[in-house]
């Protein structure tokens, strides 16, 4: 009870702080600042001009990943990842449904969190974006040639996949850590017996450098804390991975209070290279598991699901000298490593100060065995032996996440005091601060979590907008705010709304991606089993109750466009190939009464939807994407006869079997 009162007291103080300070600062900075600094000019990208950077912003509870341009803040695309997207047919078409398969069956929704771009030599390289799903633990890989999800792998023995999906310096591994400790292996047991019996698996997924394919190389079965965020070491610390923990109390109820009792939780420091070597030499134990691995094939234009039945487990005690705990101020969220790899920053979200650890001190402490006991056999390094310092109390309240520029500065978001604070990493002094509107979670500097920050812009991602935009009823957008950080002072340039909740983001210079962006899929490379390469190949085939329509689309007609012989009770497969080989000429298709979404078919691609007609009649289908001047005419009919009718299958285009006349 006492603690509840304490919490309420703290909340009141905090609220007072926000109410008394923030509004007065808001006027000064958001209005005058923008005009005085000529912000409009800095974000203006003239019609036809291109932005200088891509920003990949998490769609949060939308389950997707959004693609914005910087500095304009224009939304280019929402990439469907963990949720169905009827606009694109993702998760509806027969080919994409396997992408959303899990060991729990088909799941139409996910909670996407932390996009991270693949790296080479510690710099973002623009090959892939990885992003984690928190709810049903999964990691997705998105191609930056097609801007489509190419792979999703489920993470077994995990729950609340939150300290994920960060990549090592040469994209050797992407990690997936457990936020909600769970029994391992899962079993029926009293919740109250959690302590000591739950585990928190940290998974290391090896990335194939050619294909990008992910494979769970090993899972470290850590004590049952909550592993919140993570960051790979950089440069000199690149053999290590760091994970923040909270709920080291191992409580299981009223956790806002009970998980907030310890003054210090830990950052887990893991020498992943050492464990990878151990595993490569036959270490670890293979145990039964059941998890889905979904891979998209750009030639077959379809995804396949493989259920994997085994995973390799490493117990921390098997690899002595590989895992340590670094005491870190209260329930740290962000776990960030500066570009040199020396400073490891734990943002104690319930503390007023930030803990900065030193990598070289850590190595020395390990050599000197400067330990302060252990937790479940994992040595706890003495705080003084590893700590470099703290950013002074008063820097802000509720630090969450830090990224870096190339000039020795760190930029940290403070959720409770709603601000971004710039501070010098070496002397730990605050250099500048700027309010944000409101309650900022994460921030992003393109390359700001790599060795080589591309540090002109900073994007702050806010959880609450209240009065910042025109109201849209009770549900209002969350938003991003763009800062120019090239000068001594941060300058607020722009507000722009985001989709879902912008948990986290990754940014990259446009030139690293734009030129290799795919324009079309080559028809000649299409190996989809139901593809057609020309109108002459289009046809309708009955196989019992299943009717397969091999259909093509090209400006501005379907082939065939008159189909007869379909009966009530049939299952009709529309396998539709877009024969176009021109940039930006997708066609869509929708069938009246089909219990699914439309399809949007890119040039050269084959996609399938199914229709089970329930009523006799003549039913139209049409192109849903305005493709050409004759788009309105791009339509056709299917005749549906009664069950048992003897109308034969027939299919025509302009009165003939397709392919009789010239076609493309």
């Amino acid at each position, binding site marked *: 009870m006492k603690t509840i009162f304490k919490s309420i007291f703290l909340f009141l103080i905090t609220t007072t702080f926000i109410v008394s300070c923030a509004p007065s600062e808001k006027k000064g900075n958001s209005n005058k600042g923008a005009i005085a600094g000529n912000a409009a000019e800095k974000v203006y990208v003239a019609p036809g001009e291109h932005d200088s950077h891509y920003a990949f912003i998490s769609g949060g509870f939308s389950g997707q990943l959004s693609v914005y341009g910087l500095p304009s803040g224009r939304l280019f695309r929402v990439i469907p990842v963990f949720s169905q997207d009827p606009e694109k047919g993702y998760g509806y078409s027969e080919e994409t449904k396997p992408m959303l398969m899990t060991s729990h069956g088909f799941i139409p929704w996910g909670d996407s969190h932390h996009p991270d771009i693949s790296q080479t030599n510690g710099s973002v390289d623009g090959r892939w974006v990885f992003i984690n799903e928190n709810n049903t633990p999964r990691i997705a890989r998105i191609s930056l040639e097609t801007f489509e999800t190419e792979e999703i792998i489920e993470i077994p023995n995990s729950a609340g996949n939150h300290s994920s999906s960060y990549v090592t310096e040469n994209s050797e591994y992407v990690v997936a850590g457990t936020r909600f400790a769970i029994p391992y292996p899962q079993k029926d047991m009293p919740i109250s017996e959690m302590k000591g019996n739950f585990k928190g698996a940290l998974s290391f997924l090896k990335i194939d450098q050619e294909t990008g394919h992910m494979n769970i190389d090993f899972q470290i079965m850590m004590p049952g804390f909550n592993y919140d965020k993570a960051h790979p070491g950089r440069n000199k610390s690149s053999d290590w991975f760091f994970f923040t923990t909270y709920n080291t109390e191992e409580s299981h109820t009223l956790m806002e209070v009970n998980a907030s009792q310890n003054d210090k939780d830990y950052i887990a420091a893991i020498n992943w290279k050492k464990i990878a070597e151990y595993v490569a030499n036959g270490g670890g134990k293979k145990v039964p598991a059941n998890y889905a691995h979904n891979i998209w094939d750009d030639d077959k234009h379809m995804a396949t699901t493989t259920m994997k039945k085994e995973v390799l487990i490493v117990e921390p005690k098997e690899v002595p000298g590989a895992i340590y705990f670094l005491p870190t101020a209260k329930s740290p969220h962000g776990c960030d490593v500066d570009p040199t790899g020396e400073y490891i920053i734990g943002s104690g979200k319930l503390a007023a100060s930030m803990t900065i650890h030193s990598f070289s001190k850590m190595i020395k402490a390990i050599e000197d065995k400067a330990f302060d006991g252990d937790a479940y056999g994992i040595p706890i390094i003495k705080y003084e032996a590893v700590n470099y310092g703290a950013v002074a109390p008063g820097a802000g309240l509720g630090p969450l996440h830090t990224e870096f520029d190339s000039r020795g500065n760190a930029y940290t978001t403070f959720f409770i005091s709603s601000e971004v604070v710039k501070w010098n990493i070496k002397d730990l002094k605050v250099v500048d601060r700027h309010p944000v509107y409101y309650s900022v979670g994460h921030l992003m500097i393109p390359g700001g979590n790599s060795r080589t920050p591309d540090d002109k812009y900073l994007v702050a991602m806010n959880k609450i907008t209240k009065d910042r935009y025109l109201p849209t009823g009770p549900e209002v957008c969350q938003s991003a705010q763009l800062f120019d950080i090239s000068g001594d002072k941060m300058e607020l340039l722009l507000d722009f709304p985001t989709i879902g909740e912008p948990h986290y983001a990754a940014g990259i210079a446009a030139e690293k991606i734009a030129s290799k962006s795919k324009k*079309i899929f080559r028809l000649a490379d299409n190996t989809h089993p139901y593809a057609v390469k020309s109108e002459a190949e289009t046809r309708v085939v009955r196989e019992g109750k299943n009717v397969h329509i091999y259909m093509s689309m*090209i*400006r501005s007609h379907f082939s065939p466009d008159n189909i007869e012989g379909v009966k009530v009770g049939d299952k009709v497969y529309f396998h539709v190939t877009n024969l*176009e*080989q*021109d*940039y930006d000429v997708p066609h869509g298709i929708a069938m009246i009464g089909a219990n699914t979404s439309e399809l949007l078919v890119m040039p050269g691609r084959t996609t399938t939807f199914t229709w089970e007609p329930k009523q006799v009649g003549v039913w139209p289908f049409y192109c849903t994407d305005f493709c050409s*001047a*004759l788009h309105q005419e791009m339509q056709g009919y299917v005749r549906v006869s009664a069950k048992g009718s003897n109308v034969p299958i027939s299919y025509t285009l302009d009165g003939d079997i397709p392919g009789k006349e*010239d076609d*493309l």
Partner: protein
Amino acid sequence: MKKSKILMIIGSFLLLGLFVFPLWNITLEAPQYPIPLGMNIHINKFTDMNEFDIKNINLMNHYVGMQYIPETIPEFKIFPVVIGIMSILGMLIGFIGKHKWFLGWFILMSVLGIAGMYDFYLWEYDYGHNLDPKAIMKFTNPDGSIMGFQPPLLGSKDILNFTAHSYPMTGAWFMFTGMLMTFIAFLVGKKEAKQRINDEERT
């Protein structure tokens, strides 16, 4: 070897550039084609300027009832033979070195070139005027006649929403340069002959 002979031989040899480089190019520009559509015409084939351009030109043109650009035309059999023979012939004449023959070769080549251009014009005319009666969009000229879509023989021309450009390409420049050299070879040869007569008179 005499300068005129060298010029004649090299000039004729340059014709062979037509086997490597395209002769002509037709490019179609429109606002929605920031990268224009284009077709290269070689002496033995049509090729895309960018991959799939011909397919996309055909798609555009079907709206106004134009025929598809054929995979091949009879000229693609004839042109390589003619160019091959003319080149070898030119080089032989060069070795023999009679400057009047140089002029003869040049005139023959010019006639063949003009014939080629006329043939090209006829194909273009048919391509632009022989329209499908079931064309989706039919356009008429102010005088009521059916509008044709013939690309220009040389130069640029607005056709509906497209601007069509028709210009010689590298292969043609090789040919023009080669032909110019053979003409120069004739002039030089003539001068050389005069010089020789003068020299003979002096001695």
